[in-house]
C-alpha cells in the first residue's frame, strides 16, 4: 500500500516568503514536494475563510508564512495578520479543528534554507498525524445525500 503523502497548502506573501521559496529553488536545495503554494501580496490579505476552504478541498495541512515583524513590504500587514491569527487559531482550537495541522512562520526573502526546513518539518509532522479524516468526513457532504440535522 502506498505510504500516505500529505497535501499541504501554503499561503505565503509575495515579497518575503514567496521570494524565499524562489531562493530555495535557485540554491538547488531539495525539499518535499507536497506543498501547493498560494501567493498573496501580503499575509494581511489572507482571509480566515481561506484556511477553512483549504481543509474543505482536501488539504491535510496548512502553512501560513510571511515577512518578519517590521519587515512587511506594506509596513504593517503582517502585524494585522498576527493579531488575526492569534484569535482565529484559538477559535479553531476551541471548535476542535486540529491546529497542529496549521503552521505559521516568518520566512524572509533571504531564508531559502529556512523555507525548506519549514516545509520538510511540516510534511513530516503531517505524515505522522495522518490524513485529516475528521474534516474530510464533514466536508464530503455530497457522499452523504441527505442532511436531516
Amino acid at each position, binding site marked *: 500500500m502506498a505510504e500516505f503523502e500529505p497535501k499541504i497548502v501554503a499561503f505565503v506573501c509575495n515579497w518575503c516568503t514567496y521570494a524565499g521559496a524562489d531562493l530555495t529553488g535557485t540554491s538547488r536545495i531539495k525539499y518535499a514536494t507536497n506543498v501547493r503554494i498560494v501567493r498573496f501580496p501580503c499575509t494581511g490579505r489572507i482571509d480566515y475563510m481561506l484556511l477553512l476552504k483549504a481543509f474543505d*478541498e482536501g488539504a491535510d495541512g496548512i502553512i501560513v508564512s510571511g515577512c518578519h515583524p517590521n519587515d512587511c513590504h506594506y509596513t504593517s500587514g503582517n502585524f494585522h495578520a498576527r493579531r488575526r491569527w492569534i484569535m482565529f487559531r484559538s477559535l479553531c482550537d476551541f471548535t476542535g479543528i486540529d491546529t497542529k495541522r496549521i503552521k505559521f512562520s516568518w520566512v524572509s526573502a533571504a531564508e531559502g534554507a529556512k523555507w525548506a526546513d519549514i516545509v520538510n518539518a511540516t510534511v513530516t509532522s503531517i505524515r505522522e498525524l495522518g490524513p485529516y479524516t475528521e474534516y474530510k468526513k464533514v466536508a464530503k*457532504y*455530497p457522499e452523504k*445525500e*441527505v*442532511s*436531516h*440535522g
Partner: protein
Amino acid sequence: MNIDKRLVRKDSLEKLFDILKQNSKTIYAPFSKNGKITFKNAESFAGISNGYVQTSESSKDIAFPRAEKILDYSKNKEGMSVKGIDIKDIPDVILWGVRPCDATGIGELSSIFNWDYKDEIYNNRLSRVTVFGFSCNKSDEYCFCTSVGGNPGNTEGSDILFTRLGVEGDFLAEILTEKGVAVVSIASDLFEKSESQGKEKFLAEVKVRFNHEEIREKLDKFFESKEWIDQSLRCLGCGACAYVCPTCACFDIQDEAHGKNGSRVRCWDSCGFSHFTLHTSGHNPRDVQSQRWRQRIMHKFSYMPERLSVYGCTGCGRCSRACPADMNILENLISIQEVTV
C-alpha cells in the same frame, strides 16, 4: 367509511417500537436537545419525548430535507456527465409522534410540490413515509388549528392516529390507511379490538380565534394597507418562522463545486430574507421587510387557497414560538380580521 379503531395498551408502545425495529424499520421520533424537541433517528425507545404540546421543528424534513443532493456532475474529456440520485436508495421511514396539525401540513406541503410540476424526489420520499399521528391532549396559547379547519384529534394525513385516553392512559389507535394496516399486520397482538371509545373528551380544547374565510376575503383588498408596515416593524428578517413551519416550501439550489466535480443541492430558503427576491440586475421587488411580511401572510392565507385550494397554515403555532422578535401570527391575523378596509 368506518374507521378501524383498536386499543393499544400504554406499555405496548415500547413493544411496538421494538417490533418495528426488529423489522428493520427506520423511525424518526421527537427527542429533546438543549430544551427543544426535534425529530431524530431513533435507535431505541428510551428518550423519545412525549407529553409535549408541540415539537420545535416540524417533521417536513423527512420528505423535504433541509439539505439534499439532487444530482452529481463531473466534467471530463467527453463533456459533462450527470448522475441523478437513485430513488431506490430512499429508505422507508416511520414518523413517530406527529401532531394532527403537522399531519395536515403534509397535504398542504405536497400540494406545492405537485402544483404544475410533480416533484419526483419529494413524492418518492413522501411515499416511503408512514405517519404515526398523536392527538393533542393539551394545547397552549400559540395553537390555533381550529381556526384553519383543523382540530386536535384530526385524522387527516396520519396513517395511524394514536389518542391517549386520559393521563397515563391507554391509546385509541385509528387505522386510517393501507400503510397503517401494514403496520398492524406485523404487530397485531398489540392492536387489540376494542369497544368504540370516544376520543373527544380527552382532546385539548382549542378555541376558534378567527374566521379564515373572512380573512381571506379581506386580504384580497388588503394589499396596499399600512397595517403591514406596523405589523412588521419588529420583524428581524431571519428564517426561523419559515424553517419550523410544516407547510413552508421555499428552497434554494446550490452548486457545490470541487474542481471538475460537484453536486447540486436543494436546501431550505425563506421569503423573509432580505435577498430572497434580489435579482441579478440589482433590483429587489421586496426590498423592505413589510413587503416580505405581507408576502408571507398573503401566500399562506390568500394565494395558496386561491390556487391550490388548500390553506398554507395548519395553526401549529411554531412560527410564533420560535420567533426571536415575537411576531405572533395569530395576533396578526386577528388584527387583520378586526381592521376595517
